[in-house]
């Protein structure tokens, strides 16, 4: 069986950053991804990133992706594409698929950077062609340059909903409404402001009651909500051919479960996540995580977490000294702290601290509360 030192599952921002960091330390790294193209969701991010200069603020997501791919190439990191990982067994045996069937390899250390799945809503007509996730619409416009529809209703006003709405406008679609169940907009004011200036109507305290149409979406019925309960008589019908759902993401933890990583519920970060310590190590000491699998945040945090996991894995493989690793990790943590500050970030910092607390309890063999 083929043996590798460090296997990283997922070639998105977290996985690539982890691979680059570990390879710089001298580790032999293999990255595997089920997609035909590397970069995860980065190449769909055509907007400029936030943060400070160390976080690539002001740089568009796909440019960051190009840089990561170049670094990966320069460092000789092996990237296997189009290969889904089916299972991971005790001792680091990994089973993955190719066009010829199933194959195995053995990894000394594993970093899971599998990302997250988009959530969806169920309503009458939610299976009609034309109803899709916001990510699907973003993929179609920004990667494939095809409009999913001409008149779009966006459900959810978090940053994904706001950013994809604006990108739909840039691609030439009309956004008929941004619908939000909560009484206030979920995402950053900067993103919402752009939509408001473009004349996009916001329906706060509203939700989609049904998508109408015989074979495809032709119209959508909205209803007002009072404390998240529909108010009878407030239904309104808006003509539209597309409904996009931007209603959160859930970490993809299947492979972590197979590795025996214990999971912990994190309400603030998308649901069940593998419990992990300050250096992204799970309850399986040979398995690290990075990016949305460890709690849904942003690409900027995913890349820093990747560097953290890559550093920790290189240290455990003996490629960097404890002192050198400690210095690197402290530096990464300083940058992560910056990303997790402010009105939105502070909540994520708290949620992360909770996860680390649960991890510590598990390590002591205590009950998780």
């Amino acid at each position, binding site marked *: 069986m083929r043996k590798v030192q460090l296997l990283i599952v997922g070639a998105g921002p977290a996985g690539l950053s982890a691979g680059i960091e570990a390879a710089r330390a001298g580790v032999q790294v293999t990255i595997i991804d089920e997609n035909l193209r590397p970069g995860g969701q980065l190449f769909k991010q*055509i907007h400029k990133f936030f943060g400070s200069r160390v976080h690539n603020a002001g740089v568009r997501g796909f440019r960051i992706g190009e840089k990561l791919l170049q670094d990966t190439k320069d460092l000789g990191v092996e990237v296997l594409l189009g290969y889904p990982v089916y299972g991971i067994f005790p001792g680091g045996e990994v089973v993955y698929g190719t066009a010829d069937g199933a194959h195995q390899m053995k990894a000394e250390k594993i970093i899971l950077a599998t990302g997250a*799945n988009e959530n969806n809503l169920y309503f009458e007509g939610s299976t009609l062609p034309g109803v899709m996730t916001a990510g*699907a619409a973003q993929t179609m416009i920004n990667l494939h340059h095809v409009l999913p529809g001409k008149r779009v209703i966006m459900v959810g006003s978090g940053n994904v909903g706001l950013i994809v709405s604006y990108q739909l406008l840039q691609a030439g679609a009309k956004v008929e409404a941004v619908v939000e169940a909560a009484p206030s907009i979920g995402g950053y004011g900067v993103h919402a402001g752009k939509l408001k200036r473009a004349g996009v109507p916001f329906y706060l305290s509203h939700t989609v009651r049904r998508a109408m149409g015989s074979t495809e979406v032709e119209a959508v019925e909205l209803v007002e909500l009072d404390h998240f309960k529909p108010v009878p008589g407030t239904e309104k019908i808006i003509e539209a051919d597309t409904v996009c759902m931007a209603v959160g993401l859930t970490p993809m933890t299947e492979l972590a479960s197979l590795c025996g990583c214990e999971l912990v519920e994190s309400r603030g970060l998308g649901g069940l996540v593998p419990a992990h310590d300050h250096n992204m190590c799970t309850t399986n000491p040979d398995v690290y995580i990075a990016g949305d699998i460890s709690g849904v945040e942003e690409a900027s945090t995913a890349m820093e977490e990747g560097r953290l996991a890559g550093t920790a894995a290189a240290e455990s493989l003996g490629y960097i000294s404890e002192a050198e690793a400690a210095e690197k990790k402290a530096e990464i943590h300083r940058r992560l702290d910056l990303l997790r500050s402010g009105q939105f970030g502070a909540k994520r910092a708290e949620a992360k601290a909770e996860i680390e607390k649960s991890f510590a309890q598990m390590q002591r063999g205590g009950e998780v509360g």
Partner: protein
Amino acid sequence: MGEDRRVAEHPILEDLREPDTYILYDGKRIPAITGEPVAAALLAAGVRIMRHTTKTGQPRGIFCGIGRCNDCKMIVDGVPGVRTCVTPVREGMVVETQEGLGEWRDLV
């Protein structure tokens, strides 16, 4: 059908491409770009129904766009259950709307 949904102008995207090949959709020739997902070529031509469900025959189309949800499965080159959102276009590919689980076909 018949309408073009390709993005023609964009403030940021630079590499907007024109169709360089074609695929056959239910016997009709539609323009496509080599390497783009089959689903994108269909969407560009205004096709949004990829299959009908087994029991109730309801239409399904692109939902997740990244190969996870299986809603966009079609019969591609005689093979049923192919996820069109992650299957790259090759010249002259034969793509058919899938009814239920679809059928294997021998291509002439």
